């Protein structure tokens, strides 16, 4: 649990978070446009700026009380910076050793060194100088270095911002699996809704140096005016795992994890034969744009995923457009964005059963 109210003035920017509180388990996203104060709040929470004022508690530990602050070096935070912040005078191995030598023996999660190296894929780089690493490799090392220091909290500041799309996709998968498997409470800064929908359990919305509201991801994806929807429109995020189809090992499918007791898993055919996509637990992000609705199953159509669903409610998203919030058989949410006309012509209304059509090619891209 994080609980506090922090202020910090940096040049012309003033952070005045206002009172906030959120659970620390899982992943908390600090979300807002650039200049909203995400990074400043993170610096203040990490204790990196001694001009920070206000209060901050982590569980029953006081991290900040007025001017008094627990030094950053005693907060047990593992930080992954936007530009990796590697020690340029040391090798990859030397960077890991720096964190490892200073890690406490008696507290924090002990993750096996070799497992960290293997999972982040930096094994072949150990003897390289950090000057010769690519952007993606630098971030992998930054993640490994943060984990090896036995952090109680992982803080991650826009780690994908400076990377090309391929490295971004790989790192997103890595973050998703590492955070899931090692279970270290994580605070993630991002301005990309996609990263929130893939990684976060709850969202701290920031604007103009203030914490506007704290919501679970589910709640944040359940309102049409969510700041997460400004770029791409409504999106659903489903929990489940990726596995190969039994008799066609090159093709993959996504099997959801039911969220209700009597729920049945829902299966999505994925439009990729890629070996680049990791198997195992992850989230499936489905844009409302990519979901069409039908009264019943349709044969002879290219959309391979036809899923029975129930309409929960219908809301207006913009002129002439409506979002239809659907509940799948597993209890999870899907959203479809359709025109007013389609709603009127089909006579759609809350409580009805429909078939949701999703192009498999639109998934996991």
């Amino acid at each position, binding site marked *: 649990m994080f609980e506090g109210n922090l202020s910090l003035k940096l040049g012309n920017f003033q952070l005045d978070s206002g009172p906030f509180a959120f659970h620390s388990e899982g992943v908390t996203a600090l979300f807002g446009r650039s200049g909203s104060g995400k990074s400043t709040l993170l*610096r203040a929470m*990490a204790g*990196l700026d001694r001009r920070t004022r206000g209060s901050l508690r982590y569980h029953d530990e006081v991290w900040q009380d007025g001017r008094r602050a627990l*030094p*950053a*070096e*005693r*907060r*047990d*935070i*593992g*930080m992954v*910076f*936007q*530009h990796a*912040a*590697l*020690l*340029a*005078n040391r090798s990859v191995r030397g960077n890991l050793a*720096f*964190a490892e030598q*200073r*890690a*406490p023996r008696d507290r924090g999660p002990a993750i096996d060194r070799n497992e960290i190296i293997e999972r982040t894929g930096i094994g072949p780089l150990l003897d390289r100088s950090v*000057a010769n690493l690519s952007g993606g490799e630098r971030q992998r090392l930054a993640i490994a*270095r943060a984990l090896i*220091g036995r952090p109680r909290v992982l803080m991650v500041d826009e780690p994908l911002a400076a990377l090309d799309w391929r490295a971004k996709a790989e790192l997103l998968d890595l973050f998703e699996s590492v955070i899931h498997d090692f279970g270290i409470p994580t605070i993630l800064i991002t301005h990309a809704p996609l990263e929130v929908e893939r990684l976060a359990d709850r969202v701290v919305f920031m604007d103009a140096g203030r914490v506007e509201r704290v919501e679970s991801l589910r709640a944040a994806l359940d309102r049409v005016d969510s700041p997460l929807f400004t770029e791409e429109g409504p999106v659903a995020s489903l929990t489940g795992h990726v596995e190969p189809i039994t008799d066609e090992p090159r093709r993959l499918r996504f099997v959801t994890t039911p969220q209700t007791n009597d729920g049945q898993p829902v299966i999505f055919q994925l439009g990729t034969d890629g070996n680049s996509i990791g198997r195992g637990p992850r989230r499936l992000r489905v844009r409302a744009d990519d979901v069409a609705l039908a009264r019943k199953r349709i044969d002879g159509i290219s959309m391979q995923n036809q899923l029975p669903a129930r309409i929960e409610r219908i809301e207006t998203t913009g002129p002439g457009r409506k979002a239809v919030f659907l509940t799948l058989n597993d209890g999870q949410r899907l959203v479809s964005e359709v025109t007013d006309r389609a709603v009127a012509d089909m006579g759609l209304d809350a409580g009805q059963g429909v078939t949701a059509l999703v192009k498999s090619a639109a998934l996991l891209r």
Partner: protein
Amino acid sequence: MTLFGIPLDIHPIWLTLEVAALTTLALLIIGIPLAWWLARMQSRWRVLLEALVSLPLVLPPTVLGFYLIIALGPSGPVTEFLGLFGFEGQLTFNLMGLVIGSVIFSLPFMVQPMMSAFQALPEEVLDAARLMRAGFVDRFVNVILPLARQGLVVGSVLTFAHTVGEFGVVLMVGGNIEGETRLVSIAIFDHVESFEYEQAHLLSAIMVVFSLLTLVSVYLINRRLSARLG
């Protein structure tokens, strides 16, 4: 001894090297904390302090030498202050005076390269070291100094070379006592005054070669280190 058939008094050369080495050592000890403090300073007084450190660059050496004689002389304030702690020696016209004068005169040559090296350190890296639980001394020794070593090396080489090339201040503070405070630059002046052009030539040529080598090494260090640090 003689070199190329010209008589050469070796003592000024040794003395010059000794003064330069002591000055460089003293300035490393004074300069590192001073440069760090100035580089991190937020106060508006920083401009004044930076100007004070750089003053020896523009001040005529005679002005500096004059004030040093006054301050360090047998009845000067510094000597009297040290006298309170039982100091009975002399601070001018000996090796001590030469070193004190050189330290002040060469201060900007040590502090400025170190300051720019400290200022160029990426803030994120220092923050990362803190979060990896490195306290201040740990960070300073294991992160800050290694990353700023270019400034340290360049500052030291420049200080050494500049001290070797000094004339005005050491003449005034040290006097020109043969075998005690006569440095190479002063020895050349003496030779010229007494029309011993051969000896002047020899010592001057040694100085030209030495200075050239020093500058070449500074540029080499700069290139190699900046290439390595990317």
